[in-house]
């Protein structure tokens, strides 16, 4: 059997298992997913590529579409990465006497197959650029097509999430970019640097001496930074969304909007306590064996949440939130974290009740 065919069979088998796993959740969901969502999703991707390619689309609007497109590309490849790389049969596949180049070619062909139209459409559009003059004029699109390809390779080979290109830079360029070409060039260079350095970059915390319980908790947070970063970005997205909305519709009632934003921000940040509860349950005997007062341990374990709260409050303050809403936001975050300890999955009850109560006590109008 040809090597590529062998790899393809592994890929198909893995994807079948993935679909079977989804079908075990719900047959209806699977039928809906396979028969309706996938074609809709692919068609939508093609339409979005058309919008991005169009010279008449505004720069900021184009960058928002590009951002969404890159996110979809990343997710599409990431869920298939193990199937494409035959990770489940890693040792056996490595033992097959095939050159490294041939392995890479197989990876790339399976990647294009798995990425399907989402991956091929931007390259296809590039091929329709009629002449050099247009190529220079549409240079931003060529860069975008390359970014999509490169990001797919990052999703395939890199274990870590490329937060820089997926989340941080897009938010930055949407607000500040004047030229689509330069924005795309910076994005492409960032993705390239992520491809080279993403997994290699390692925060070496081994020599750090751990003397206090607070340091141990910080070490735990740094051990799993994704949960912390995602929550900060989530809160930032809500507050940024508020800023965007106010910019577009200055006639809206500001305090009412701020109150609306406070609850999801608190829920996103307060849910970090689930991480701490997980730590406590994973190391329950170690935790109980510590010769330290339980109340002291509890207070120290609130440190990551306190840091998240500070980030959120600073962003809210910069966004022009009223002072009483900043205080309310802090109260909601604390109540959400308390809710995690008291009600577990229903941790939203307490902050929701407080938000409802604030509408009654300090009525705010949406008009």
């Amino acid at each position, binding site marked *: 059997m040809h090597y590529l065919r062998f790899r393809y069979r592994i890929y198909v088998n893995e994807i079948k298992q993935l679909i079977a796993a989804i079908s075990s959740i719900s047959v209806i969901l699977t039928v809906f997913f396979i028969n309706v969502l996938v074609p809709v999703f692919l068609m939508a991707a093609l339409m979005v590529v058309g919008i991005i390619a169009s010279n008449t689309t505004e720069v900021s609007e184009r960058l928002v579409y590009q951002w969404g497109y890159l996110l979809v590309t990343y997710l599409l490849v990431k869920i298939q990465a193990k199937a494409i790389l035959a990770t489940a049969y890693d040792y056996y596949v490595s033992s097959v006497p095939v050159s490294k180049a041939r392995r890479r070619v197989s990876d790339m062909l399976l990647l294009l197959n798995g990425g399907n139209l989402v991956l091929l459409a931007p390259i296809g559009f590039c091929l329709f650029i009629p002449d050099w003059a247009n190529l220079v004029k549409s240079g931003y699109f060529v860069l975008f097509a390359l970014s999509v390809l490169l990001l797919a390779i990052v999703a395939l080979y890199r274990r870590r999430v490329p937060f820089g290109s997926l989340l941080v830079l897009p938010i930055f360029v949407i607000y500040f970019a004047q030229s689509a070409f330069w924005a795309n060039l910076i994005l492409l260079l960032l993705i390239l640097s992520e491809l080279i350095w993403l997994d290699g970059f390692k925060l070496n915390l*081994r*020599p*750090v*001496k*751990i*003397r*206090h*319980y607070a*340091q*141990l908790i910080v*070490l*735990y947070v740094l*051990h*799993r930074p994704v949960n912390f970063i995602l929550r900060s970005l989530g809160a930032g997205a809500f507050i940024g969304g508020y800023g965007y909305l106010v910019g577009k519709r200055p006639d809206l009632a500001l305090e009412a909007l701020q109150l609306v934003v406070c609850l999801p921000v608190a829920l996103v940040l307060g849910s970090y306590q689930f991480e701490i509860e997980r730590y406590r349950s*994973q*190391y329950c*005997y*170690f935790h*109980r*064996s*510590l*010769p*330290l*007062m339980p109340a002291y341990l509890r207070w120290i374990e609130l440190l990551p949440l306190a840091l998240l709260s500070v980030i959120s409050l600073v962003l809210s303050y910069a966004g022009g939130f009223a002072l009483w809403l900043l205080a309310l936001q802090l109260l909601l975050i604390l109540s959400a974290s308390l809710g995690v300890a008291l009600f577990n999955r229903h941790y939203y009850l307490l902050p929701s009740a407080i938000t409802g109560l604030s509408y009654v006590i300090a009525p705010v109008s949406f008009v």
Partner: protein
Amino acid sequence: MMRFSHVCKSFGNNAVLQQFSYDFVLGKHCIVGPNGCGKTTLLMLAAGLETPCSGTIDFNSMAVQSVEAKRVIGLASDKVVFPRFMTASQLIDFHCRCYAVPWPEQLIVALNFSSHIGTLVSELSLGNQKKLSLLLAFAHNPQCLLLDEPSTGLDAHSRDYVAQLLEAYQGTLIISSHDPLFTEDRQYQQLSLSAD
């Protein structure tokens, strides 16, 4: 003295200890019995890491769950999972700081653990995890030492060294083991638990 008074402990419908009363006086004790009879549970209760459903457990008149008791008790058990995100060195350092004791260099060298000191707990072999757990149990010179299968997984050299340490130990020592090194040693008072 470690005193168990009318202790009951069950997990769900499975009653492990029922009205268990026993005084572990100063000296060496070995708990024996078939798998699942509650040997490890008894050690976890003695260390204050499990709470009895009823009854009381004291060490020298201190409730074992109090911070004061924890300061004078040392436990080594595979049940205690150490933070996998710390290195052995960080964990020992933190332990020494909590108990206000010096770095246990002599123990580390004697157990041939020096070369693994910078390794993450998650990357330690089972044998080295056992050594780390023993190191932490001995590090603060506890008045009461609780060891769950202390010789399992150790190399011959470390096993001999641990045997020497235990030979010289002056406090209340409670071991759970199937190893003849302890079960056939007359210094150890045997406490037999049954599976029923």
